[in-house]
């Protein structure tokens, strides 16, 4: 009775015996028909995730995709892993409970700008702060897709939508700053129309130990078409996107002829063409530099600066679920495995004859 037989541990033990088979992207496609609008950026995200998953060498029965509500949150239905389509905004909390109960699982969250930053903003910041090892993909289309086109917390000021016929008077969130402000240990951004880049960021997010936050610029071609075209289309992309890489100077432009230099705390664009500045004058990206991460994230709010994309910030700090498991192990070492009889009989008791 008192010896502890844990049913979940039995199952985990069993699965460990299974040799990891080699997967292809196709193995991660579920039997459900994908129901996003044709042309939606979500398709690309699904494809890139399915492409990266096989590289991770994790049995797919140990993977769970959790989501809230929204077009983006349909994601789990299309992955042939375990999947949990939750309620609006609550995916980070559901995933937190699951990860704490089952640290052995690999857990991803798919969420939207409304799901993750509006109704679920509270859960999003708290999972980041706790650093629970869950990977969060936030599909930012700057609109409420599923409810047919209201503005979202990332929609720009003045945006005309169904619910803002005179233009929105809401000031938007910058998702990267929300994540950084919430102490996330991994903060990144990528683009639906740059498959290679997205794959590399997803890979990094997967490898990171701790809450990984990935903002994905995603086109909603029905309700907010072209919101990110400046950053995703061939003609404008190079001059407007700064792809940051750890240890490399911040260079951008079609001709790789522009760079970012710090004037005090303010990033400014300098030309590398006229001989006045060389790459050695530029900021060298350092993913572990907290101050720099805020400066980089803030660049999105400044019109004349290129949009930073890539891994903005990545550091290691203790995992919530690991710390909790440690406390439990310690308690068991000190007091012995819990014994119900002992619990009920401890402290003051008396006999009635």
């Amino acid at each position, binding site marked *: 009775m008192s010896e502890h037989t844990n049913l*979940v541990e039995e199952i985990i033990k069993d699965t460990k015996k299974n040799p990891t088979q080699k997967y292809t992207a196709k193995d991660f496609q579920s039997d459900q028909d994908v129901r996003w609008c044709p042309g939606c950026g979500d398709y690309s995200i699904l494809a890139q995730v399915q492409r990266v998953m096989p590289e991770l060498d994790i049995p797919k029965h140990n993977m769970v995709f959790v989501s809230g509500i929204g077009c983006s949150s349909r994601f789990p239905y299309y992955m042939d892993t375990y999947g949990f389509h939750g309620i609006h905004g609550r995916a980070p909390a559901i995933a937190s409970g699951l990860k704490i109960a089952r640290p052995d699982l690999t857990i991803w969250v798919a969420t939207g700008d409304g799901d993750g930053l509006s109704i679920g903003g509270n859960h999003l910041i708290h999972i980041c702060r706790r650093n629970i090892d869950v990977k969060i993909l936030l599909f930012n289309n700057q609109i409420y897709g599923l409810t047919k086109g209201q503005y979202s917390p990332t929609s720009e000021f003045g945006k005309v939508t169904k619910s803002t016929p005179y233009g929105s008077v809401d000031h938007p969130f910058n998702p990267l700053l929300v994540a950084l402000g919430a102490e996330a240990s991994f903060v990144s951004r990528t683009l639906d129309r740059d498959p290679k880049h997205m794959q590399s960021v997803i890979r990094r997010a997967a490898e990171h130990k701790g809450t990984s936050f990935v903002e994905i610029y995603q086109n909603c071609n029905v309700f907010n078409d072209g919101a990110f075209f400046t950053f995703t289309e061939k003609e404008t992309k190079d001059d407007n996107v700064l792809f940051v890489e750890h240890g490399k100077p911040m260079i951008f432009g079609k001709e790789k002829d522009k760079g970012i230099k710090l004037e005090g705390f303010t990033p400014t664009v300098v030309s590398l063409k006229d001989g006045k500045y060389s790459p050695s004058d530029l900021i060298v990206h350092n993913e572990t530099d907290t101050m720099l991460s805020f400066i980089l994230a803030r660049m999105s709010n400044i019109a004349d600066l290129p949009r930073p994309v890539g891994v903005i910030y990545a550091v290691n700090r203790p995992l919530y679920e690991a710390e909790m498991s440690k406390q439990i192990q310690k308690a068991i070492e000190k*007091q012995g495995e819990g014994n119900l009889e002992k619990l009920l009989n401890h402290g003051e008791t*008396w006999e009635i004859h």
Partner: protein
Amino acid sequence: MNKNSKNKALKNLEEVTIRFAGDSGDGMQLTGMQFTSTTALLGNDLSTLPDFPAEIRAPAGTLFGVSGFQIHFGSMEINTPGDSCDVLVAMNPAALKVNLRSLRDGGIIIANRDGFNDKNLKLAGYEKNPLDDGSLDKYQLHAVDITKLTHNALEQLGLSNKLVERSKNFFALGMMYWMFSRPMEPTIKWIQEKFKKTPEIIEANTKVLKAGYAFGETTEIFAARYEVKPAALKPGKYRSITGNEATAWGLIAGSVKSGLDLFLGSYPITPASDILHELSKHKNFRVKTFQAEDEIAGITSAIGAAYGGAIGVTTTSGPGMALKGEAMGLAVMLELPLVICDIQRGGPSTGLPTKTEQADLLQAVYGRNSEAPIPVIASITPADCFLTAFEAVRLALKYMTPVIFLSDGYLANGAEPWLIPDVGSLPDISPTFRTDPQGFYPYLRDEKTLSRPWAIPGTPGLEHRIGGLEKQHITGNVSYDPENHEFMVKMRQAKVDRIAEDIPLAHVEGDEQGDLLVVGWGGTYGAIRTAVENKRREGKSVSHLHLKYICPFQKNIGEILYNFKNVLVPELNLGQLSKLLRAKYLVPAITLNKVQGLPFKSIEIENKIDEIL
């Protein structure tokens, strides 16, 4: 030394109710709890009612800062904390003013005269000192200089005034120990344990306790000393337990018996927080407690944990229940096991956080969008919370359903002696996880229980998707089909209804038929039991049915109701169970409702019985 006390008559009493009252900073809860454990050790039956303000340290001396602790103990069966008290210990004028109405005529007042200074009298709204103006003549008044005597006792120790003042509750406790012939040793032992790190406090509190005892023994002011013989409790090993402790332990027992880890997702709220505190202590049972960012995260994290194969639990009170509504619906749709504990308090809104009420019943039964049936069970005494919480775990796991466990502020903080159960005699809980991929469908049901398989992540070959969208019968795929939806709505209801086959039949206390059946639920058990027993002793044809299972009702409830000419339903709300009974059984239930944040007095129920019969 015992000369004086020998002179005093030792009177035998069957039952006594004492109320300790003072400022919230006066340590009245602690004093009451110490008196309780000592009394329990002596083998008395007992019931307690802590009654404290919502403010942690309300301004000293004010009426709203009064904290009280009532204990009813005896050599007979004790079911309530007592309708009125025999002894009132009042540390200041405010405590006297607030609690005097609960003292019976002729009762004893022990007042700390030093607390009745001009400032405190004014704060309590007394123009004259009630200790001197004759207004308390119908009581036996003893005004004792408790503060001064405490100072005297500690003179040698050179402690700060503040520390000395803090000990004065032990003086009052010592007096009560003397007056009711209780030993001091258990409290002295407790003091030594509690203040291990500060020997000077051990010395001070022990000295003051003994001084209080000696004061009773040596002074002439108390005419009598009392004895309350042990009660004829069922033989066995006992302990004292509060409802919240019992709830926490019942959940742990469910974890041990089922071989599943317990996960609690919770956001602090009075009067439920103590369950979170208690469970957080027992890490060696692998209990994982997660203090979430809000109530919604509390329940959704628990649902996530349940999906992963843990016993998911969330604990809260009314306002938190309101926030959890949508997620409860999700758990209904997902058909995952989950225990939702609602420790009811006075409402609506923030209401009366530290007071008791039973007004969340309809919220528990119906408070969700659409057809979202959830089994609801309610504990009936503090100790009963253990078996009821355990039962909630059992039902949740067996029927793959969220279960609502109802308790209330009165049960949560109240204590009673508990015959420690034999662990081996607890009902069996044997959950199984689906492991065989052959013929696996997420919503293919067990024929007997109608529950779906629990297929947890980590199981090879069972990868599947679930969610809040309507499910297709058997496959669990998303389905918008009209017939399927109706089928599934009925199926979820049928599953919950089927639990009626799995729970014991209800039994009536008293005769199986007669003129009046008093039907209660939850924490009113003790008051109704006492009232009905008193009336039966008078020869009235009245019986008592107390419901622990509210949803579904036990199978024989209708049969029982129809055997009585009248049905009376006393509730601490405006009539919620009565609505359910009328709707289901078409009985003209008479209601008796009280919503004062206080439990029923048995006399209130007795009066109503007299009115009907």
